[in-house]
Protein backbone atom coordinates (compact mmCIF):
# COMPACT_ATOMS: atom_id res chain seq x y z
CA UNK A 1 0.00 0.00 0.00
CA UNK A 2 2.72 2.49 1.10
CA UNK A 3 6.42 1.88 0.58
CA UNK A 4 9.32 4.18 1.58
CA UNK A 5 12.80 2.95 0.57
CA UNK A 6 15.81 4.93 1.84
CA UNK A 7 14.01 8.22 1.41
CA UNK A 8 15.79 11.51 1.93
CA UNK A 9 14.05 14.86 1.83
CA UNK A 10 16.27 17.91 2.04
CA UNK A 11 15.28 21.44 2.99
CA UNK A 12 15.87 24.05 0.29
CA UNK A 13 18.31 25.87 2.59
CA UNK A 14 20.23 22.77 3.62
CA UNK A 15 19.64 20.04 6.19
CA UNK A 16 17.22 17.13 5.98
CA UNK A 17 13.56 16.86 6.88
CA UNK A 18 13.80 13.11 6.35
CA UNK A 19 16.89 10.93 6.46
CA UNK A 20 17.08 7.44 5.03
CA UNK A 21 13.50 6.58 5.94
CA UNK A 22 12.26 3.12 5.00
CA UNK A 23 8.77 1.96 5.82
CA UNK A 24 6.22 -0.47 4.50
CA UNK A 25 2.55 -0.12 5.36
CA UNK A 26 0.32 -3.01 4.37
CA UNK A 27 -3.29 -2.93 3.21
CA UNK A 28 -5.75 -2.34 6.06
CA UNK A 29 -3.07 -1.43 8.61
CA UNK A 30 -3.37 1.34 11.23
CA UNK A 31 -0.06 3.12 11.75
CA UNK A 32 0.82 5.94 14.12
CA UNK A 33 3.61 8.31 13.13
CA UNK A 34 4.90 9.90 16.31
CA UNK A 35 7.64 12.28 17.30
CA UNK A 36 8.20 15.88 18.33
CA UNK A 37 7.33 18.85 16.14
CA UNK A 38 9.76 18.97 13.24
CA UNK A 39 10.64 15.28 13.58
CA UNK A 40 9.46 14.60 10.00
CA UNK A 41 5.91 13.25 10.52
CA UNK A 42 4.23 15.82 8.31
CA UNK A 43 6.98 15.49 5.70
CA UNK A 44 6.27 11.75 5.47
CA UNK A 45 2.56 12.42 5.02
CA UNK A 46 3.22 15.15 2.45
CA UNK A 47 5.36 12.72 0.49
CA UNK A 48 2.51 10.21 0.63
CA UNK A 49 0.02 12.58 -1.03
CA UNK A 50 2.66 14.10 -3.34
CA UNK A 51 2.56 17.54 -1.80
CA UNK A 52 6.33 17.08 -1.73
CA UNK A 53 8.69 14.89 -3.74
CA UNK A 54 11.56 12.85 -2.29
CA UNK A 55 15.06 14.27 -2.79
CA UNK A 56 16.30 10.72 -3.16
CA UNK A 57 14.98 7.24 -2.49
CA UNK A 58 11.72 5.69 -3.52
CA UNK A 59 8.19 6.47 -2.34
CA UNK A 60 5.33 4.35 -3.68
CA UNK A 61 1.73 4.87 -2.65
CA UNK A 62 -1.14 2.80 -3.98
CA UNK A 63 0.90 1.88 -7.03
CA UNK A 64 2.08 5.43 -7.79
CA UNK A 65 5.77 6.30 -7.82
CA UNK A 66 5.74 9.69 -6.09
CA UNK A 67 9.19 10.70 -7.37
CA UNK A 68 8.12 10.17 -10.98
CA UNK A 69 4.56 11.38 -10.76
CA UNK A 70 3.57 13.82 -13.51
CA UNK A 71 1.41 16.81 -12.45
CA UNK A 72 -1.60 15.31 -14.23
CA UNK A 73 -1.26 12.08 -12.22
CA UNK A 74 -1.37 13.81 -8.82
CA UNK A 75 -5.19 14.18 -8.85
CA UNK A 76 -5.49 10.48 -9.73
CA UNK A 77 -3.37 9.56 -6.69
CA UNK A 78 -5.31 11.86 -4.37
CA UNK A 79 -8.64 10.41 -5.43
CA UNK A 80 -7.46 7.16 -3.90
CA UNK A 81 -6.54 8.87 -0.64
CA UNK A 82 -8.48 10.59 2.09
CA UNK A 83 -6.59 13.40 3.81
CA UNK A 84 -7.43 14.99 7.17
CA UNK A 85 -5.62 17.88 8.87
CA UNK A 86 -5.43 19.41 12.30
CA UNK A 87 -7.09 22.63 11.05
CA UNK A 88 -9.99 20.76 9.34
CA UNK A 89 -9.64 22.79 6.09
CA UNK A 90 -13.36 23.20 5.53
CA UNK A 91 -14.90 25.84 3.29
CA UNK A 92 -16.52 28.27 5.70
CA UNK A 93 -19.21 29.43 3.31
CA UNK A 94 -20.56 25.95 2.65
CA UNK A 95 -22.63 23.69 4.84
CA UNK A 96 -21.36 20.35 6.13
CA UNK A 97 -23.04 18.44 3.32
CA UNK A 98 -21.84 20.93 0.71
CA UNK A 99 -18.29 20.54 1.99
CA UNK A 100 -18.55 16.78 1.64
CA UNK A 101 -20.32 16.97 -1.73
CA UNK A 102 -17.57 19.32 -2.96
CA UNK A 103 -15.06 16.44 -2.92
CA UNK A 104 -17.35 14.40 -5.16
CA UNK A 105 -18.22 17.30 -7.46
CA UNK A 106 -14.66 18.37 -8.16
CA UNK A 107 -13.66 14.81 -8.98
CA UNK A 108 -16.41 14.60 -11.57
CA UNK A 109 -18.87 12.23 -9.85
CA UNK A 110 -22.30 11.87 -11.42
CA UNK A 111 -24.71 14.35 -9.85
CA UNK A 112 -27.40 11.83 -9.07
CA UNK A 113 -25.16 9.72 -6.82
CA UNK A 114 -23.88 12.66 -4.74
CA UNK A 115 -26.73 13.21 -2.21
CA UNK A 116 -26.91 9.52 -1.28
CA UNK A 117 -23.19 9.16 -0.73
CA UNK A 118 -22.96 12.41 1.24
CA UNK A 119 -25.80 11.26 3.46
CA UNK A 120 -24.14 7.87 3.98
CA UNK A 121 -20.76 9.27 5.13
CA UNK A 122 -22.35 11.97 7.29
CA UNK A 123 -24.31 9.20 9.02
CA UNK A 124 -21.10 7.19 9.34
CA UNK A 125 -19.38 10.07 11.17
CA UNK A 126 -22.46 10.73 13.28
CA UNK A 127 -23.45 14.07 11.77
CA UNK A 128 -26.54 13.18 9.76
CA UNK A 129 -28.55 15.66 11.83
CA UNK A 130 -26.17 18.56 11.17
CA UNK A 131 -25.89 18.29 7.40
CA UNK A 132 -27.15 21.86 6.88
CA UNK A 133 -24.92 23.45 9.52
CA UNK A 134 -22.08 25.74 8.53
CA UNK A 135 -18.60 25.03 9.99
CA UNK A 136 -18.88 28.02 12.36
CA UNK A 137 -22.02 26.46 13.83
CA UNK A 138 -20.17 23.21 14.64
CA UNK A 139 -17.80 22.32 17.46
CA UNK A 140 -14.16 21.44 16.69
CA UNK A 141 -14.89 17.74 16.99
CA UNK A 142 -17.85 18.05 14.65
CA UNK A 143 -15.84 20.04 12.14
CA UNK A 144 -13.18 17.33 12.15
CA UNK A 145 -15.91 14.75 11.58
CA UNK A 146 -17.08 16.72 8.53
CA UNK A 147 -13.47 16.74 7.29
CA UNK A 148 -13.27 12.98 7.84
CA UNK A 149 -16.58 12.51 6.01
CA UNK A 150 -15.15 14.49 3.10
CA UNK A 151 -12.02 12.32 3.16
CA UNK A 152 -14.14 9.15 3.15
CA UNK A 153 -16.71 10.06 0.55
CA UNK A 154 -14.56 8.87 -2.36
CA UNK A 155 -14.06 5.47 -0.65
CA UNK A 156 -10.30 5.82 -0.31
CA UNK A 157 -8.03 2.83 0.27
CA UNK A 158 -5.80 4.96 2.49
CA UNK A 159 -6.70 7.66 5.01
CA UNK A 160 -3.88 10.05 5.93
CA UNK A 161 -4.45 12.10 9.08
CA UNK A 162 -2.03 14.83 10.17
CA UNK A 163 -2.62 15.55 13.88
CA UNK A 164 -6.39 15.14 13.46
CA UNK A 165 -6.99 15.58 17.20
CA UNK A 166 -4.46 18.37 17.69
CA UNK A 167 -7.12 21.07 18.04
CA UNK A 168 -9.66 19.04 19.98
CA UNK A 169 -10.51 18.63 23.66
CA UNK A 170 -10.22 15.22 25.29
CA UNK A 171 -13.78 14.14 24.67
CA UNK A 172 -13.76 15.17 21.02
CA UNK A 173 -10.36 13.53 20.64
CA UNK A 174 -11.75 10.22 21.88
CA UNK A 175 -14.70 10.48 19.52
CA UNK A 176 -12.62 11.29 16.46
CA UNK A 177 -10.07 8.60 17.29
CA UNK A 178 -12.81 6.01 17.70
CA UNK A 179 -14.16 7.06 14.32
CA UNK A 180 -10.75 6.51 12.73
CA UNK A 181 -10.56 3.08 14.36
CA UNK A 182 -14.00 2.20 12.99
CA UNK A 183 -12.92 3.34 9.55
CA UNK A 184 -9.82 1.14 9.83
CA UNK A 185 -11.96 -1.76 11.00
CA UNK A 186 -13.88 -1.35 7.73
CA UNK A 187 -10.67 -2.16 5.83
CA UNK A 188 -9.25 1.31 5.15
CA UNK A 189 -5.54 1.73 5.80
CA UNK A 190 -5.03 4.63 8.24
CA UNK A 191 -1.77 6.54 8.75
CA UNK A 192 -2.10 9.02 11.59
CA UNK A 193 0.58 11.50 12.62
CA UNK A 194 0.24 12.52 16.26
CA UNK A 195 2.26 13.57 19.25
CA UNK A 196 -0.52 12.52 21.64
CA UNK A 197 1.17 9.52 23.24
CA UNK A 198 -1.84 8.80 25.49
CA UNK A 199 -3.76 8.04 22.36
CA UNK A 200 -0.96 5.84 21.03
CA UNK A 201 -0.72 3.87 24.27
CA UNK A 202 -4.47 3.17 24.31
CA UNK A 203 -4.13 0.72 21.46
CA UNK A 204 -1.75 -1.82 20.13
CA UNK A 205 -1.55 -0.30 16.68
CA UNK A 206 1.78 -0.16 14.94
CA UNK A 207 3.82 2.89 15.96
CA UNK A 208 6.62 4.50 13.96
CA UNK A 209 8.62 7.09 15.83
CA UNK A 210 10.61 9.80 14.08
CA UNK A 211 13.41 11.89 15.53
CA UNK A 212 15.16 14.63 13.54
CA UNK A 213 14.06 13.13 10.26
CA UNK A 214 15.03 9.54 11.00
CA UNK A 215 12.83 6.59 11.89
CA UNK A 216 14.15 5.61 15.31
CA UNK A 217 11.52 3.05 16.20
CA UNK A 218 9.01 0.92 14.35
CA UNK A 219 6.89 -1.40 16.48
CA UNK A 220 6.01 -3.32 13.36
CA UNK A 221 9.64 -4.32 12.93
CA UNK A 222 10.96 -4.55 16.46
CA UNK A 223 8.54 -5.08 19.31
CA UNK A 224 11.39 -5.34 21.82
CA UNK A 225 12.20 -1.66 21.36
CA UNK A 226 8.74 -0.66 22.49
CA UNK A 227 10.09 0.68 25.77
CA UNK A 228 12.09 3.21 23.79
CA UNK A 229 8.92 5.01 22.79
CA UNK A 230 8.98 8.46 24.29
Amino acid at each position, binding site marked *: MIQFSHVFKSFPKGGFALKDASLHVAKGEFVFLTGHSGAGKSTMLKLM*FAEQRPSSGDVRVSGFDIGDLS*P*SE*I*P*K*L*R*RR*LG*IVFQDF*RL*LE*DRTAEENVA*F*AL*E*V*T*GSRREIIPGRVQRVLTQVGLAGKASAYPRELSGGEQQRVAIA*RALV*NDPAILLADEPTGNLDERATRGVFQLLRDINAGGTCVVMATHDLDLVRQTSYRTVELREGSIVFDSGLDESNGADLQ
Partner: protein
Amino acid sequence: MRLVSREALLSFRRAPLLSALSVTTIAFSLFVVGLFGLVALNLRAALRGVEERVEVVAFLLRGTPPETIATASEDISAFPEVQTVDYVSAEQALARARTTMVEFRDVYRDLQVNPLPASLEISLKEGFRDAEHARAVADRVKAYQFVEDVRYGRDWIERLDKLRNIAGLVVMTIGLAFAVVAVVIIGTTIRMTVLQRAREIAIMRLVGASDWFVRGPFLLEGALKGFLGGALAVLLSYLGYLLFRGNQIGTTTGLVFFQPVHIALIILFGTLLGLSASLVSVGRHLRNV
Protein backbone atom coordinates in the same frame (compact mmCIF):
# COMPACT_ATOMS: atom_id res chain seq x y z
CA MET B 1 -19.27 22.51 -17.18
CA ARG B 2 -22.36 23.02 -15.08
CA LEU B 3 -20.28 22.93 -11.90
CA VAL B 4 -17.63 25.21 -13.41
CA SER B 5 -20.25 27.84 -14.26
CA ARG B 6 -21.91 27.44 -10.85
CA GLU B 7 -18.58 27.96 -9.08
CA ALA B 8 -17.77 30.96 -11.28
CA LEU B 9 -21.13 32.59 -10.52
CA LEU B 10 -20.84 31.70 -6.84
CA SER B 11 -17.60 33.64 -6.62
CA PHE B 12 -19.45 36.77 -7.77
CA ARG B 13 -21.95 36.23 -4.98
CA ARG B 14 -19.34 35.41 -2.35
CA ALA B 15 -17.10 38.36 -3.04
CA PRO B 16 -19.37 40.98 -4.58
CA LEU B 17 -17.07 43.88 -3.67
CA LEU B 18 -13.96 42.34 -5.17
CA SER B 19 -15.91 41.23 -8.24
CA ALA B 20 -17.36 44.71 -8.69
CA LEU B 21 -13.87 46.15 -8.27
CA SER B 22 -12.48 43.84 -10.93
CA VAL B 23 -15.27 44.63 -13.37
CA THR B 24 -14.94 48.38 -12.74
CA THR B 25 -11.16 48.25 -13.13
CA ILE B 26 -11.46 46.38 -16.41
CA ALA B 27 -14.20 48.78 -17.50
CA PHE B 28 -12.17 51.91 -16.76
CA SER B 29 -9.01 50.50 -18.33
CA LEU B 30 -10.92 49.58 -21.46
CA PHE B 31 -12.80 52.87 -21.29
CA VAL B 32 -9.51 54.76 -21.58
CA VAL B 33 -8.44 52.52 -24.46
CA GLY B 34 -11.91 53.00 -25.93
CA LEU B 35 -11.68 56.78 -25.59
CA PHE B 36 -8.45 56.77 -27.54
CA GLY B 37 -10.10 54.54 -30.08
CA LEU B 38 -12.94 57.03 -30.30
CA VAL B 39 -10.51 59.93 -30.72
CA ALA B 40 -8.70 57.97 -33.44
CA LEU B 41 -12.00 57.15 -35.11
CA ASN B 42 -13.15 60.76 -35.10
CA LEU B 43 -9.77 62.02 -36.20
CA ARG B 44 -9.86 59.59 -39.09
CA ALA B 45 -13.40 60.67 -39.97
CA ALA B 46 -12.36 64.33 -39.83
CA LEU B 47 -9.27 63.67 -41.94
CA ARG B 48 -11.32 61.72 -44.44
CA GLY B 49 -13.49 64.82 -44.90
CA VAL B 50 -10.39 66.84 -45.64
CA GLU B 51 -8.92 64.09 -47.77
CA GLU B 52 -11.96 64.04 -50.01
CA ARG B 53 -11.02 67.52 -51.06
CA VAL B 54 -7.65 66.34 -52.30
CA GLU B 55 -7.81 66.76 -56.07
CA VAL B 56 -5.60 67.55 -59.03
CA VAL B 57 -6.74 70.39 -61.27
CA ALA B 58 -5.39 70.59 -64.82
CA PHE B 59 -5.90 73.96 -66.51
CA LEU B 60 -6.36 73.65 -70.26
CA LEU B 61 -5.05 75.81 -73.08
CA ARG B 62 -7.65 77.92 -74.78
CA GLY B 63 -9.04 76.47 -77.98
CA THR B 64 -8.46 72.84 -77.11
CA PRO B 65 -11.00 70.84 -79.16
CA PRO B 66 -13.72 69.19 -77.06
CA GLU B 67 -12.98 65.76 -78.62
CA THR B 68 -9.36 65.96 -77.46
CA ILE B 69 -10.54 66.85 -73.97
CA ALA B 70 -13.06 63.99 -73.97
CA THR B 71 -10.43 61.46 -75.06
CA ALA B 72 -7.95 62.73 -72.49
CA SER B 73 -10.64 62.59 -69.77
CA GLU B 74 -11.22 58.95 -70.56
CA ASP B 75 -7.47 58.26 -70.49
CA ILE B 76 -7.09 59.97 -67.13
CA SER B 77 -10.15 58.20 -65.69
CA ALA B 78 -8.33 54.93 -66.39
CA PHE B 79 -5.40 55.89 -64.12
CA PRO B 80 -5.43 53.52 -61.12
CA GLU B 81 -5.37 56.43 -58.65
CA VAL B 82 -8.20 58.38 -60.26
CA GLN B 83 -11.77 58.25 -59.04
CA THR B 84 -13.50 60.86 -61.25
CA VAL B 85 -12.57 63.38 -63.92
CA ASP B 86 -14.87 66.39 -64.26
CA TYR B 87 -14.59 68.85 -67.12
CA VAL B 88 -15.22 72.44 -66.07
CA SER B 89 -15.60 74.78 -69.03
CA ALA B 90 -14.40 78.39 -68.90
CA GLU B 91 -18.02 79.54 -68.60
CA GLN B 92 -18.74 77.19 -65.73
CA ALA B 93 -15.54 78.35 -64.00
CA LEU B 94 -16.68 81.98 -64.31
CA ALA B 95 -20.16 81.18 -63.04
CA ARG B 96 -18.66 79.33 -60.09
CA ALA B 97 -16.28 82.22 -59.37
CA ARG B 98 -19.20 84.63 -59.38
CA THR B 99 -21.07 82.61 -56.77
CA THR B 100 -18.20 81.53 -54.55
CA MET B 101 -16.05 84.65 -54.61
CA VAL B 102 -18.68 87.14 -53.57
CA GLU B 103 -16.19 89.92 -52.89
CA PHE B 104 -15.10 89.89 -56.57
CA ARG B 105 -18.65 89.71 -57.84
CA ASP B 106 -18.47 93.18 -59.42
CA VAL B 107 -15.15 92.45 -61.11
CA TYR B 108 -16.42 89.24 -62.66
CA ARG B 109 -19.73 90.86 -63.72
CA ASP B 110 -18.09 93.62 -65.72
CA LEU B 111 -15.68 91.40 -67.61
CA GLN B 112 -15.71 91.61 -71.40
CA VAL B 113 -13.55 88.53 -71.85
CA ASN B 114 -13.60 85.46 -69.61
CA PRO B 115 -10.07 85.25 -68.11
CA LEU B 116 -10.60 81.86 -66.56
CA PRO B 117 -9.37 78.73 -68.36
CA ALA B 118 -11.31 75.50 -68.75
CA SER B 119 -10.07 72.74 -66.48
CA LEU B 120 -10.22 69.05 -65.62
CA GLU B 121 -10.90 68.39 -61.92
CA ILE B 122 -9.45 65.02 -61.06
CA SER B 123 -10.45 63.45 -57.74
CA LEU B 124 -8.42 60.59 -56.33
CA LYS B 125 -9.54 57.26 -54.94
CA GLU B 126 -9.37 56.60 -51.19
CA GLY B 127 -5.91 55.46 -50.25
CA PHE B 128 -4.33 57.59 -53.01
CA ARG B 129 -5.19 60.93 -51.47
CA ASP B 130 -1.66 61.83 -50.40
CA ALA B 131 1.14 64.02 -51.66
CA GLU B 132 3.01 61.26 -53.44
CA HIS B 133 0.10 59.99 -55.52
CA ALA B 134 -1.23 63.50 -56.20
CA ARG B 135 2.20 64.46 -57.54
CA ALA B 136 2.41 61.32 -59.71
CA VAL B 137 -1.00 62.02 -61.26
CA ALA B 138 -0.12 65.72 -61.74
CA ASP B 139 3.14 64.81 -63.52
CA ARG B 140 1.38 62.47 -65.91
CA VAL B 141 -1.43 64.95 -66.64
CA LYS B 142 1.12 67.71 -67.23
CA ALA B 143 2.52 65.66 -70.11
CA TYR B 144 -0.60 66.37 -72.21
CA GLN B 145 0.18 69.14 -74.70
CA PHE B 146 -3.05 71.02 -74.11
CA VAL B 147 -2.51 71.21 -70.35
CA GLU B 148 -1.17 74.62 -69.43
CA ASP B 149 -0.70 74.09 -65.73
CA VAL B 150 -1.50 71.59 -62.98
CA ARG B 151 -2.26 72.40 -59.34
CA TYR B 152 -2.78 70.01 -56.49
CA GLY B 153 -2.30 72.07 -53.34
CA ARG B 154 1.05 70.43 -52.69
CA ASP B 155 1.83 72.19 -49.44
CA TRP B 156 -1.36 71.40 -47.62
CA ILE B 157 -1.51 67.84 -48.89
CA GLU B 158 1.98 67.30 -47.49
CA ARG B 159 0.92 68.87 -44.22
CA LEU B 160 -2.14 66.64 -44.16
CA ASP B 161 0.14 63.62 -44.65
CA LYS B 162 2.30 64.66 -41.73
CA LEU B 163 -0.71 65.35 -39.50
CA ARG B 164 -2.18 61.97 -40.39
CA ASN B 165 1.07 60.17 -39.53
CA ILE B 166 1.61 62.01 -36.25
CA ALA B 167 -2.01 61.58 -35.13
CA GLY B 168 -1.96 57.88 -35.96
CA LEU B 169 1.31 57.35 -34.11
CA VAL B 170 0.23 59.29 -31.01
CA VAL B 171 -3.12 57.54 -30.75
CA MET B 172 -1.56 54.13 -31.33
CA THR B 173 1.24 54.66 -28.78
CA ILE B 174 -0.99 56.02 -26.03
CA GLY B 175 -3.72 53.45 -26.75
CA LEU B 176 -1.16 50.65 -26.62
CA ALA B 177 0.32 51.97 -23.38
CA PHE B 178 -3.12 52.03 -21.78
CA ALA B 179 -3.87 48.54 -23.10
CA VAL B 180 -0.71 47.28 -21.39
CA VAL B 181 -1.71 49.08 -18.17
CA ALA B 182 -5.16 47.48 -18.48
CA VAL B 183 -3.61 44.00 -18.78
CA VAL B 184 -1.47 44.58 -15.68
CA ILE B 185 -4.38 45.93 -13.63
CA ILE B 186 -6.72 43.15 -14.71
CA GLY B 187 -4.03 40.57 -13.93
CA THR B 188 -3.65 42.06 -10.45
CA THR B 189 -7.37 42.08 -9.66
CA ILE B 190 -7.75 38.50 -10.84
CA ARG B 191 -4.71 37.59 -8.75
CA MET B 192 -6.45 39.12 -5.72
CA THR B 193 -9.43 36.86 -6.40
CA VAL B 194 -7.13 33.87 -6.72
CA LEU B 195 -5.37 34.69 -3.45
CA GLN B 196 -8.69 35.27 -1.72
CA ARG B 197 -9.69 31.77 -2.77
CA ALA B 198 -6.30 30.14 -2.17
CA ARG B 199 -7.78 28.00 0.58
CA GLU B 200 -10.50 26.70 -1.71
CA ILE B 201 -7.93 25.97 -4.43
CA ALA B 202 -5.78 24.08 -1.90
CA ILE B 203 -8.78 22.00 -0.80
CA MET B 204 -9.81 21.29 -4.40
CA ARG B 205 -6.33 20.00 -5.10
CA LEU B 206 -6.26 17.93 -1.91
CA VAL B 207 -9.43 16.09 -2.79
CA GLY B 208 -8.09 15.32 -6.25
CA ALA B 209 -9.53 17.96 -8.57
CA SER B 210 -7.55 18.16 -11.80
CA ASP B 211 -5.69 21.37 -12.58
CA TRP B 212 -8.10 22.21 -15.38
CA PHE B 213 -11.00 21.70 -13.04
CA VAL B 214 -9.41 24.14 -10.60
CA ARG B 215 -8.73 26.62 -13.39
CA GLY B 216 -12.15 26.32 -15.02
CA PRO B 217 -14.21 28.52 -12.68
CA PHE B 218 -11.47 31.17 -12.57
CA LEU B 219 -11.18 31.28 -16.33
CA LEU B 220 -14.92 31.59 -16.75
CA GLU B 221 -15.01 34.20 -13.99
CA GLY B 222 -12.19 36.17 -15.65
CA ALA B 223 -13.88 35.97 -19.05
CA LEU B 224 -17.19 37.04 -17.54
CA LYS B 225 -15.58 39.97 -15.74
CA GLY B 226 -13.80 40.96 -18.95
CA PHE B 227 -17.08 40.74 -20.85
CA LEU B 228 -18.93 42.89 -18.29
CA GLY B 229 -15.97 45.29 -18.11
CA GLY B 230 -15.94 45.60 -21.90
CA ALA B 231 -19.68 46.22 -22.02
CA LEU B 232 -19.41 48.82 -19.25
CA ALA B 233 -16.50 50.48 -21.09
CA VAL B 234 -18.65 50.78 -24.23
CA LEU B 235 -21.44 52.29 -22.13
CA LEU B 236 -19.03 54.78 -20.52
CA SER B 237 -17.58 55.69 -23.93
CA TYR B 238 -21.12 56.25 -25.21
CA LEU B 239 -21.92 58.51 -22.26
CA GLY B 240 -18.69 60.42 -22.95
CA TYR B 241 -19.63 60.66 -26.58
CA LEU B 242 -23.10 61.97 -25.72
CA LEU B 243 -21.57 64.52 -23.34
CA PHE B 244 -19.21 65.90 -25.98
CA ARG B 245 -21.83 65.86 -28.67
CA GLY B 246 -24.36 67.52 -26.38
CA ASN B 247 -21.95 70.33 -25.53
CA GLN B 248 -20.97 70.75 -29.16
CA ILE B 249 -17.51 71.82 -28.12
CA GLY B 250 -15.58 73.38 -31.00
CA THR B 251 -15.78 71.21 -34.06
CA THR B 252 -17.38 68.26 -32.32
CA THR B 253 -20.76 68.57 -34.03
CA GLY B 254 -19.84 65.85 -36.50
CA LEU B 255 -18.69 63.34 -33.87
CA VAL B 256 -19.07 59.67 -34.72
CA PHE B 257 -19.45 56.68 -32.36
CA PHE B 258 -18.22 53.10 -32.71
CA GLN B 259 -19.82 50.88 -35.33
CA PRO B 260 -21.45 47.66 -33.99
CA VAL B 261 -18.38 45.73 -35.16
CA HIS B 262 -16.12 48.00 -33.06
CA ILE B 263 -18.39 47.50 -30.03
CA ALA B 264 -18.24 43.73 -30.50
CA LEU B 265 -14.45 43.95 -30.81
CA ILE B 266 -14.09 45.98 -27.57
CA ILE B 267 -16.24 43.50 -25.66
CA LEU B 268 -14.38 40.57 -27.21
CA PHE B 269 -11.08 42.25 -26.34
CA GLY B 270 -12.26 42.69 -22.72
CA THR B 271 -13.34 39.04 -22.56
CA LEU B 272 -10.00 37.86 -23.92
CA LEU B 273 -8.14 40.17 -21.52
CA GLY B 274 -10.07 38.76 -18.54
CA LEU B 275 -9.53 35.22 -19.76
CA SER B 276 -5.79 35.56 -20.36
CA ALA B 277 -5.22 37.50 -17.12
CA SER B 278 -6.99 34.67 -15.24
CA LEU B 279 -5.02 32.03 -17.09
CA VAL B 280 -1.71 33.65 -16.13
CA SER B 281 -2.71 34.40 -12.51
CA VAL B 282 -4.16 30.96 -11.76
CA GLY B 283 -1.33 29.22 -13.61
CA ARG B 284 1.26 31.09 -11.56
CA HIS B 285 -0.61 30.36 -8.33
CA LEU B 286 -0.95 26.64 -9.10
CA ARG B 287 2.75 26.38 -9.89
CA ASN B 288 3.60 27.90 -6.53
CA VAL B 289 1.38 25.75 -4.29
